[in-house]
Structures are given as structure tokens and as C-alpha cells.
């Protein structure tokens, strides 16, 4: 599996930490965040390919709101929603907002990793398209190279 960066957002510490440990053990670049706010803060300083987001996080920022904010910060990151039965409707709502898919808790690691890989693939394909589009544009308007460079700098 190709190396990709994953952010796990879940307020259930036990769950989040175990999942992070297990994924790290499988040599993935995984970061954990305990709340929506924390996740947004991290995303402002680091780019992610896949985000795993628990949709039901009482107390802090709600999953769907977090999703909306994430899409503003990193529109290209694919988001996988984690949900219990009670929040399936929210997941569907989330998918309308641009989430890649949703998974029902409790999840088994293999399923999760498969979904993550699919998400990453999609993100990759998307990136490729963008790159191609850019090249086309560059060929047409060579003068814009400078502007793109600036944008890239900002992102990283």
C-alpha cells in the first residue's frame, strides 16, 4: 500500500488511541485528534489524504460541522465517516456534503483499511486530474507558473 497520511477524529480516547496504534503498527502515517476543533487545528498545519471522522461527538463540535470546515481547509482530503446506527441519517447527510463513504461501528480493521485505500485512490485520481489540468493550462498560459508556485508554497 502506498504511503498516505491519515487523520483520525474520535472523542472516544480508548478507541482512537488503539486504532492509531494499530494503524501505525502497519506503517501508516496516522495522527489522532480528540475533537473537531483539534482536528481543524491540525489540518491547518498538515496536509492529509484521508480523514476518518466520527459523526457523533457530544460535547464539542458536531461531526457534520467539522466536515464542512474541513472541506474549506483541505477540499481534496477524502473523509470517511464513522457512525453508529442512530446517526446513519447524518452520515447520508455527510455524504451529500462530500464525504467519501461511511462505516458502521464497531468496525473491523481490515474493512477500514480497504475503505481507506479506496479513499486514497480516489484522492490520488483527483490529484492526477488536477495536475493534468494544470499542465494543460500551463501550456496555454505559460505566464501563470508563478502564480501556481505561490499557491503551492502556501499549502505546504
Amino acid at each position, binding site marked *: 500500500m502506498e504511503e498516505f497520511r491519515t487523520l483520525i477524529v474520535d472523542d*472516544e480516547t*480508548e*478507541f482512537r488511541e*488503539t*486504532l492509531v*496504534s*494499530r494503524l501505525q*503498527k502497519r506503517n501508516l502515517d496516522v495522527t489522532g485528534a480528540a475533537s473537531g476543533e483539534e482536528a481543524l487545528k491540525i489540518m491547518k498545519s498538515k496536509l492529509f489524504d484521508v480523514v476518518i471522522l466520527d459523526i*457523533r461527538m457530544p460535547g464539542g463540535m458536531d461531526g457534520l460541522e467539522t466536515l464542512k470546515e474541513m472541506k474549506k481547509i483541505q477540499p481534496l482530503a477524502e473523509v470517511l465517516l464513522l457512525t*453508529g*446506527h*442512530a*446517526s*446513519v*441519517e447524518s452520515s*447520508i447527510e455527510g455524504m451529500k456534503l462530500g464525504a467519501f463513504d461511511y462505516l*458502521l*461501528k*464497531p*468496525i*473491523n*480493521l481490515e474493512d477500514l483499511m480497504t475503505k481507506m485505500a479506496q479513499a486514497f485512490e480516489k484522492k490520488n485520481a483527483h490529484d492526477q486530474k488536477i495536475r493534468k489540468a494544470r499542465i494543460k493550462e500551463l501550456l496555454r498560459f505559460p505566464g501563470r507558473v508563478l502564480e501556481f508556485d505561490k499557491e503551492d508554497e502556501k499549502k505546504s
Partner: protein
Amino acid sequence: MKTSLYQALQRKIIVITLIVSFAPLIILGATIYRLSAQMYRTKVEEQIEYRAKAQAEAVDLFLKERTAILAAMADTHVYRELVDEKNLSHLFQVMNLRAGAFVDLGVINNAGQHVAYVGPYDLKGLNYYQQPWFGEVMSKGTYISDVYVGFRLIPHFIIAVRRQEGDNSWILRATIDPDIFGAIVRSAQVGKTGDAFIINAEGVYQTRPRFEGQILSPSPLDPSLFGGRTTVLERVGSQGRKTYYAGSWLKSDKWLLVISQEMAEEMSGLLATRTVVVFLIILGVIGIVLTTVFTTRLAVHRLKEADEKMNALNVQLMQSDKLAAIGKMATGVAHEINNPLAVILQRTGWMQDLLQKEEFQKSENFAEFQTSIRKIEEHVERARKVVHNMLGYARKMEPRLEDVDVNATVNQTIDILENYARINNIDIQTDLAPELPIIAGDQAQLQQVFLNLISNAIDAIDKEGAVAVKSVRSGGEIHVAVTDTGPGIPAEHQSKVFDPFFTTKQSGKGTGLGLWISYNIVEKMGGTITLNSQPGKGTTFTVKIPIVVPQKK
């Protein structure tokens, strides 16, 4: 229990209505009859009294006329003249010509010697001195006798007047024809049972009565009962029937003219009235009974229907309330269970990851650890499945909208179950309405509903029987009924069959979630699912789905 309650109500209404309507009817009928009977009786009595009085006057007049004629004849002739039988015969002829009813005429001198006689009997020369009437005439001047047999041995009566001619006094005596007299009296006889006769103060017949009794024989009537001028009595007559007797005294209260009439004949008009009244009342009673029974039955039937409808509605309402509450609770519980399950699963996964390290592989309990972890995962999976099943319907909160052919879905479901049914000797019959509309819905979910219902039906029958699947269009709904020939669902279980985890199957064979899930699926489609079960006969589950026409793409 319920039926008898309605029957009791019906009985009560009928009884009260009948009493309330019969009472005035009967009271009214009886009162009208009594009043009219009284009026009628009064009228009859008045009539018979009038007839007795009129007849008595007529008879009295007859006697007075005869007496007057006789007196006039006596006064206008002298003894000498009349002793001559030629003259007497002439006089007799004149009298009979003008008045009639005289049988004979005779002259009696003051010694009681019958000195002259005209008539059919040989009475001349007889001496009446010893006769009681002789003295009477001599002292009173006129005399009308009672009927007696006399010398001629035939019942008759006489009128006699005394003429005072200077020192000599003599008597002119005539016999009244009893036949003519009797005919006059009898002219007051009316109808088949009416009679008219005369009795004297001793109750002896003076004329022949129409029925029993002879002239001069004693009558059963006691004349002393008749007071005043005219009296009406009511007595049991000779035939044992009630009879009216109207008596009117005449001839200076010596004779009593009696007119009798059997009450039954007189009252026949009233009897006809009574028959009509009774007939009308009976007709009314029959009408009231029929109407009352009919309307009451109708009303109670309607009431029962309304009650049943209401009960069914209440049951359905309570059911859906209950299931909604259970659903809400189950969802909450499921979520709370899922979270720890998720953690447990991750933790065991982590443990398994760690076990891959070499240091653990060497441990003597390595196999034990692995088994334990596998067992934990297995049971987490089991718990997860229960929760998933319980909320299975919720997995697809928004059912997919696709074109669903209900009949095809039923047939597919039956294909799946056919083998299972055949093994158990159960015949699945279908009666599917052709040309059901295609509806928009989730075929997989609908199929799950049919699968649950039909497999439940097969399980209910156990071995040998039939399952009937019927689909019909009913207004804006499609109804699919699944009927089995199983033992039916006991009444106390009927309200629970849709509850989650309610099962009567052996533990391990059924989760008790099938109907719960089916119920929720159908409800989400905007339909209902109902059951009708008669213990011992079988059960029918009916799915009613609203027809939602698919949008054109």
C-alpha cells in the same frame, strides 16, 4: 362475554320499548272498548226499555179500547133489548166490525145468570154468581180478568162492564180472542232470540212465550223484581245465556209485559267492534314487535361494529405507539452498546497485533491467548449481530426508490422458500391480482417482509398444510395477505408479535426480530401490517402498501 353484553343491551332496549309502547296501546284499547261497551249497553237497555214501554202502552190501549167499546154498548142499550139474542148478535157483529178481537158476547143478570149469549160456545144459562170476577164487576163497574180456562176449557180472558139501569144492574161481558191478543203482544218480538209475553202478578204466563213455557204455566221470572213502571233486568235466561228482561206494568199493575232479548244478540255489534279493536291491537303489537326488534338489532349491530372498529383502531394506535417507543429506546441502547464494542474490538485487535511479536510467540500460553482473543472477537461479533439485526431496518434509513413489481417480488420470495415448504409438506398457493401497478419502493426490503411472513407461516404450520398468498388492489393500496392453516396465535400473544425479541420458537431458532423488522419496513413505506388470527384455524397477516407511482426518469 362481549356478545352477551350486546345481547343483554339488545334485550333491555327491546323489553323497555315494548313495555312503553304496549302499555298505552292496550290501556287505550281497553278504555275505548269499555267506554263503547258501556255506551252500547246503555243504548241497548234504553232501547229495550222503550220497546217494553211502547208495547205496554199499545196493549193497554187495546184493552182500554175494548173496555170502552163494551161500556159504550152497555150504556147505549137497555137490558131488555140485549136479552133478545137477535139484538145481541147484531151488536156483536157491529162491535167486531169496528174493533174486532171479540170472541163472544154475553149478558149476565144481577143473579149471575147468563141470560143471553152470542158466540161459538154453549154458555147460555151458566151461573157466574160463584165466580170471583162476578163480585168484582158488580162492585167496581169494569173488570178485565186474568187468563183462565173457565167453562169452555180454553185459556182466555174476559172484559166485563156493569150497567146500572134504575134498580136493575146487569153485566155485558165479552171474551177477547187470545190469538189476536197474543199476536199483538208477540209483535214486539225481535230477532232470533227476542221474546215478548205477559205474565200476571203471580208470574203466570198470560200469553204464550216464544220459547219454553205455556200459557197459564208459571214463568221463571219473579214479577216482584220489576218495580215502577218499566224496569230493565239482566238475568241468566233459560238457555243459560245472559238475557235482558224489560218489564212494564199495565192493566193497573196487574199484568207485566215482558220483552226479553239475549245479550249476545244485542251485543253482536259490540262484539264485532271488539273483534276489530282486538285485531287492530294485535296488528299494532306485531308491527311494534317487528319494528322494535328490527331497529334495535340494527342499532346494536351498528354499535358493535363501531366499537369493534374503535377497538381495532385503539389496538393499532397502541401498537404503533409502543413500537415507536421501543424503537427509540433500542436505537439508543444500540448506540451505547456499539461504542464499547468498538473499543473492545480494537483492543483485542491490538492484542493480536502485539502477539505477532517474537517475545510472545515463545510464551507457553501463546495458544491460549490466541484462543481467548478469537473467542472475544467471536462474541463481540455475536453482540454486534444482535444489535445490527435489531436495527436492521435502520441500516437503510432512506429506502431506495426503484420500480417494484409486488407480484414478482412475492413470486421470487416463494421461489426461495419453496424447497423449505416442500420438505415440510406444505403447499404454497398464490392468488395474485393481475395488472397490479408498479410502485416506487425498495424491493429488497419488501422482499424481506414477504420472506419473514411466509417463512413464519411455514413455521407456524410445522408439517402439512397450506399457505395462501393473495394480492389485491384496494383503492390506493396494494394488499398482500399471507394466510396459514396453522394453530393460530393465542389472543394474549397477538398484541406482542411485533415486539422485538418476542418469539415462541425454540431458543436459537428465532431471534424474534422478523416481524419487528417487517413492521418497521412497512411502516416506513407508509403502509400498515395487521394480523387476524383465530386460534385453531390459522392466521392471516395483511400488508397494506400505498401505491406510490414511480417518477418518470
